[in-house]
């Protein structure tokens, strides 16, 4: 409240500069409909509408039949609600010759996301812990390379990775893609965990060492139970990041393993057949549903995650 009062006072001060020497003038204007409030809230509401509009349009379009779309406007609510486009998007939409809908992409994405999230977090958290608490010679050098690596465009590294994966015999498989997600999740997650563990009191770690606990005991018994919030943040970051990935899915998997984003793009941007905008929008919402759910459920933690994960761009 203090800040607001001071800023509004500043405004008044500015406007009434000429009368400044007249002394105190009446009570502070605190009415809800002050000019300042109208400007602030008016702008914010306008902005909010702009941000919500695409979501609204997606939803209403997905609930209309094609004839209604052809005659109506995209903002109009559906005259006759139909869930047919949703069913079609999920179970019948075609990509190439396959006509079993987005469900296949959905399950592929689940099969990619779950192990990728778990493995990348497990690897990076142990890594961050080692960096924060068990500094060894050279560790900082590797960490610096890792962080700089986060800025290297993926395009520079994908072909060598294709070769490595091919040598390992996992190119085109889900395993390969999980490895790729673990690799590219590592810089930001390691940074996240390292900073978190470094922020914990160092004496706790020392006490555990005096108590005789070793590397893994301290990690599992002391650090892990204290760090649940950061694991949730990392989880949010990874679930949304990996679910939304397109490039790695397209490069590192075979068509039968394509994640949902890739399949969605193939459905909507396919050149054959009549464009079914309602089905397209239903499919689009379906693909966005998982990250959106994570986002709305996690709230503040998501903000923390992206503030940390912003490097991912």
């Amino acid at each position: 409240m203090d800040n607001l009062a001071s800023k509004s006072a500043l405004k008044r001060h500015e406007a009434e500069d000429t009368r400044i020497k007249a002394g105190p003038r009446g009570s502070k204007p605190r009415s809800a409909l002050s000019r300042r409030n109208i400007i602030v809230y008016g702008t914010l509401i306008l902005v909010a509408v702009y941000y919500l509009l695409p979501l609204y349009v997606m939803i209403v379009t997905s609930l209309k039949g094609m004839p209604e779309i052809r005659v109506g406007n995209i903002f109009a609510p559906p005259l006759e609600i139909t869930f047919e486009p949703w069913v079609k998007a999920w179970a019948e939409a075609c990509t190439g010759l396959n006509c079993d809908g987005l469900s296949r992409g959905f399950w592929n994405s689940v099969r990619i996301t779950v192990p990728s999230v778990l493995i990348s977090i497990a690897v990076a958290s142990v890594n961050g812990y080692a960096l924060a608490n068990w500094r060894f010679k050279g560790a900082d050098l590797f960490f610096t390379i890792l962080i700089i690596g986060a800025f290297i465009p993926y395009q520079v590294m994908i072909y060598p990775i294709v070769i490595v994966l091919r040598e390992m015999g996992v190119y085109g498989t889900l395993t390969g893609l999980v490895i790729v997600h673990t690799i590219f999740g590592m810089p930001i997650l390691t940074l996240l965990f390292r900073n978190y563990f470094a922020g914990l009191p160092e004496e706790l770690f020392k006490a555990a060492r005096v108590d005789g606990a070793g590397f893994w005991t301290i990690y599992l018994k002391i650090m892990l139970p204290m760090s649940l919030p950061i694991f949730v943040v990392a989880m949010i970051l990874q679930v949304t990041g990996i679910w939304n990935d397109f490039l790695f899915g397209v490069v590192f998997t075979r068509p039968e393993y394509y994640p949902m984003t890739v399949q969605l793009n193939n459905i909507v941007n396919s050149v054959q057949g009549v464009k079914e905008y309602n089905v397209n929008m239903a499919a689009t919402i379906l693909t966005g549903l998982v990250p959106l759910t994570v986002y709305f459920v996690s709230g503040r933690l998501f903000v923390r995650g992206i503030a940390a994960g912003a490097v991912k761009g």
Partner: protein
Amino acid sequence: MTSVSVRDLSLSFGAVTVLDKLNLDIDHGEFLVLLGSSGCGKSTLLNCIAGLLDVTDGQIIIHDRNVTWEEPKDRGIGMVFQSYALYPQMSVEKNLSFGLQVARVPQAEIDKRVKRAAEILQIQPLLKRKPSELSGGQRQRVAIGRALVRDVDVFLFDEPLSNLDAKLRSELRVEIKRLHQSLKNTMIYVTHDQIEALTLADRIAVMKSGVIQQLADPMTIYNAPENLFVAGFIGSPSMNFFRGEVEAKEGRSFVRVDGTAFDVTAYPASVPLKPGQKVVLGVRPEHVKVDEARTDEPAHQATVDIEEPMGADNLLWLTLAGQPMSVRIAGKRRYPPGSSVRLSFDMGVASIFDAASENRL
């Protein structure tokens, strides 16, 4: 019998040398305090003894066993930290038993030791609670308990009372002393608080820039500081220093400062004072008498600048020989600013240091 022995210990981080060939022997059952301001290397030394820092060179011997490269747990030490360092997700009982469980001590033995530690520290009612449900004093008690259950002979304390408020600090100070008296084990205690050092220690090691300046019992440290740094560091307000030159006249010795001559004939110098020698005369505020000198005794005239009544004491700030000095007198005698006083010095308990080497003469 020696309990902990540090030999030629050196530690450097890259180009920065924190400890350089440090030697220290601590007797069995001794309470040793490492005293110094922050950055003097006292905590570093303690961490080296604990095995939490790898030393660059030298040896650490605990109970006749070279433990320089042993893991902390194998050194026979327990440690208490400033921030208590209790594991937040574990109950008090789990906190106490964690180390024993890691060491696979049989459950019956664990229970016995936890029970005993809880009794000694009177924390039995807290055993089921989480650290977050305890007060600062209770937390520190649990932290001490964690060292206690380890059944070791050497306790290391790293500023254990610094996070507590003044009242609790003095309470726990007494308790630590009582604990030491009943356990009779070796304790190494790091602090920057001179009161803690003076009240707890059998011996104090005053440290500065990684070097032990003086290692002695509290009374010696206080009354006969080995050098200018120790003299200035111990005591509050600190010792009054006068820089001057030694003079000999009619069989008596003086230190002349800016036209004022202090008669130091009574000073028990271990090295004879040479006329012309540049020295620093140090007198503690409580070793100055105000208006008590007989008329035939040497005394100095001064004017009170500021009076700070502190209840039991009364602290006077005056100017003598062109420089400010402080005097502590009994609380009921009052001297408002501007009062003229006669000061006489008890040179038998004063200190004189060589100005160049800063060592006691």
